[in-house]
């Protein structure tokens, strides 16, 4: 099937705009992060719960209230308005991002995740949507800047270094597993980037409190990281299993320690360790957060280093 050049150009245009809008959202959110009043209020709230809970019982951190409490100064209120605009812009960015992928799909007549550029875009989309979903449950939109930053970097690299002309796919990829396997892997890996970032913030909050006045309470961060990881992990696991099922019919074996398989396995082990660490005395808290960061790092390593430097069977890496 021939590639529709016009649609493909529109797709590129949407991609560029999405990145631009994310950058704007990041700047707005930066204002919120810098001047909104966050850290103190959150800290107070945790104190209140502590009293309520009493000694000895496991702490279940409260979830933030529906509306932020009235800000005390005009400047803080203005900053918070920037924060809300940042969220609105992020939603707009997601719209453009989706459009970019859909248009590419129509341009090529196949699913839009068959090379590094497209796969990276899909993964970033998963990450941003994950963040928006988190924002519906936790009032931490001033942290958007930290999530958008890596997404923008990834998308910039994808658009500039890894950009690939729209093209049809080769025989190994002509299978419905391309949809099932890649969607679940992209969703799983995109989602876990967010807890990776949040865990970095957690470590800063716990180890260097003097830098972290404006971050939410440590257990809020811990909850965000944990809940997101717990959601993403089974999806990722399923994605790896789907990959194995596909490999059985495409490559002649379901598992062969191909570099991509090895690192997928390593990442899986690291996340399994994360879940276990939270049930192990002396590991929960800081060490668990460090493991979560390691997991996200292994995922990114798999995406870039393994695809670009180590040759494997995954043909999208070199296309």
């Amino acid at each position, binding site marked *: 099937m021939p590639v529709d050049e016009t649609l493909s150009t529109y797709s590129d245009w949407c991609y560029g705009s999405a990145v631009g809008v994310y950058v704007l959202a990041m700047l707005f959110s930066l204002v919120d992060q810098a001047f909104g009043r966050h850290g103190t209020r959150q800290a107070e709230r945790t104190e209140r719960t502590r009293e309520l809970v009493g000694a000895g*019982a496991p702490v279940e951190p409260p979830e933030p209230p529906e509306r932020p409490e009235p800000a005390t100064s005009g400047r803080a209120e203005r900053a918070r308005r920037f924060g809300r605009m940042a969220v609105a812009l992020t939603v707009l960015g997601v719209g453009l991002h989706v459009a970019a992928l859909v248009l590419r799909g129509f341009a090529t007549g196949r699913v839009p995740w068959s090379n590094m550029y497209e796969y990276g875009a899909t993964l970033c989309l998963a990450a941003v949507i994950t963040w928006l979903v988190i924002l519906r449950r936790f009032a931490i939109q001033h942290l958007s800047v930290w999530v958008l930053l890596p997404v923008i970097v990834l998308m910039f690299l994808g658009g500039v270094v890894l950009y690939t002309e729209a093209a*049809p796919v080769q025989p190994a990829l002509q299978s419905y597993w391309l949809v099932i396997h890649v969607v679940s892997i992209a969703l799983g890996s995109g989602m876990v980037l967010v807890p990776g970032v949040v865990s970095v913030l957690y470590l800063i909050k716990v180890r260097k409190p003097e830098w972290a006045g404006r971050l939410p309470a440590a257990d809020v961060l811990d909850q965000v990281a944990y*809940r997101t990881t*717990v959601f993403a992990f*089974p999806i990722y696991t399923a994605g790896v299993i789907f990959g194995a099922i596909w490999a059985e019919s495409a490559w002649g074996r379901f598992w062969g*320690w191909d570099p991509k398989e090895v690192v997928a396995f*390593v990442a899986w082990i690291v996340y399994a360790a994360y879940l276990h660490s*939270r049930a192990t005395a002396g590991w929960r808290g800081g060490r668990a957060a460090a493991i979560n960061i390691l997991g996200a790092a292994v995922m990114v390593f798999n995406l870039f280093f393994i695809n670009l430097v180590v040759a494997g069977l995954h043909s999208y890496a070199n296309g």
Partner: protein
Amino acid sequence: MIAFLRNTWRGLTSMRTALILLFLLALAAMPGALLPQRDLNAGAVEDYIAANGWWGRLLDRLGFFDVYASVWFSAIYLLLFVSLIGCLVPRTFEYAKALRGKPVLTPRNLARLPHHREGRTDAGVTEVMAGARRRLRGWRLTEREEDDGARSISAERGYLRETGNLVFHFAMLGLIGALALGKMYQYEGQVIVLADGSEFCNSGTYAYDSFQPGLRVDGTDLTQFCVRVNDFTANFLPSGAADYFRADIEYQTGEDLETGTWRPYALEVNDPLRIAGDRVYLLGNGYAPTFTVTFPNGEQRTQTIQWRPVDLQTYLSEGATKFDPPGITDPAERREKQIAVTGLFAPTAVLQGNVLASAFPEARDPAVAVDVMRGDLGTNSGRGQSIFEIDQRMVDQGRLERVARENLRPGEEIRLDDGTVVHFDGVERFAYLQVSHDPTQVWVLGFAVALVLGLVTSLTIKRRRVWVRATPITDDDGTGRTVVVLGGLARTDQAGYGEEFGRIADDLLEPEPEDAERVPAGRET
């Protein structure tokens, strides 16, 4: 001694050890992604060792080029396996006990629990208890009489979490076991079959070009089946990228072997032929040029041998087609007269100067650029030979000499000084097939599915408790009323129990919610 063993066992089966073992396993697996591995690419391993001297040899000795078969990798894996069993056995017993047990007694002071609400009602204790039982349908309950006419219910829910967790871990054990068994009884073999109606039968390892048996496979009783490759179709995009491959094959197995029945199948990438517990894959394809050599005595020999594609964008291929002179019985003389036609094949030839290149993977204008070699091919030396190359040592020793170099199109020929004629007849396609056998892979899949289901169950379900205590009191104005106190506790660190607890409390205390001290409740969306 016993104490030592017991301590070792305790240490091995503790969560902390399991964690460390998990990390070790992840760490140990990494070199396999970063260093070349023998079973994937033996050539790359040799190159790596040659390029890195003593360091390469040391890595080799330590098993870094066969990571997943190395002693250290297996040791970690085994320890983890043992640790897993050690964790699981006691937990299974506890689980069985908990299933039969009753929810724990209501704590004296419910106000100290993480979730807590309190209220008063005009309803009597019995009524409150009945309401609570109705509300808590689906929870495991016990009701108890307490002092002073008070009554309490303790309720617990989410036992499925532990079930899911055990399913997950047992599935992992099963998976590891099935993988290990698979390693024993599986085999894999590769074979090149010309797409001109040639046949391949899975009758023994000798039928393969390469064969990798499992530890318990000696190649004597392979599944009996035969495959015949009649035709091969390939489509390429104008860019030269592959678009579609199909081998039209026929196969026979079981009774068909006796009756001689052949059944057709279109073998495609992603769509293996599954027969009698074996799978046949289309892994690759390429070209096999046909040469006919007419020897000085007038005898002719024709051979069609696969040449190996060196560039998958253009299918430029290299190879060596080897001939024994007919009618010569003296081995010494024969070794003077052996012939090899070796060089490059291009399906769509372009000549750059005198150098042959290929412009497209389809056979639109095939040509070969060959050296004809005469002398001793070294085929009787006892050393194995690549079918794609001549033995360079024979050339270096002067026992094999180049007697012609020429570019040929189909129908063209080379006449050698002794009257031998080498004729390029044309070209045939070949299919590169793989046969795989793994009796346990269905089990592996089953365990993998169980693993995911167990994981999802154990990560989404919360084990949680709620207690309700109703105490009769006499109010200041003398009427009898009931104080209802609720306490709640989630036993796992999954948050979000606050919402559910809040709803239960609302339902039970609805008559007088304004009295209740509100725990900051979850945001409901």
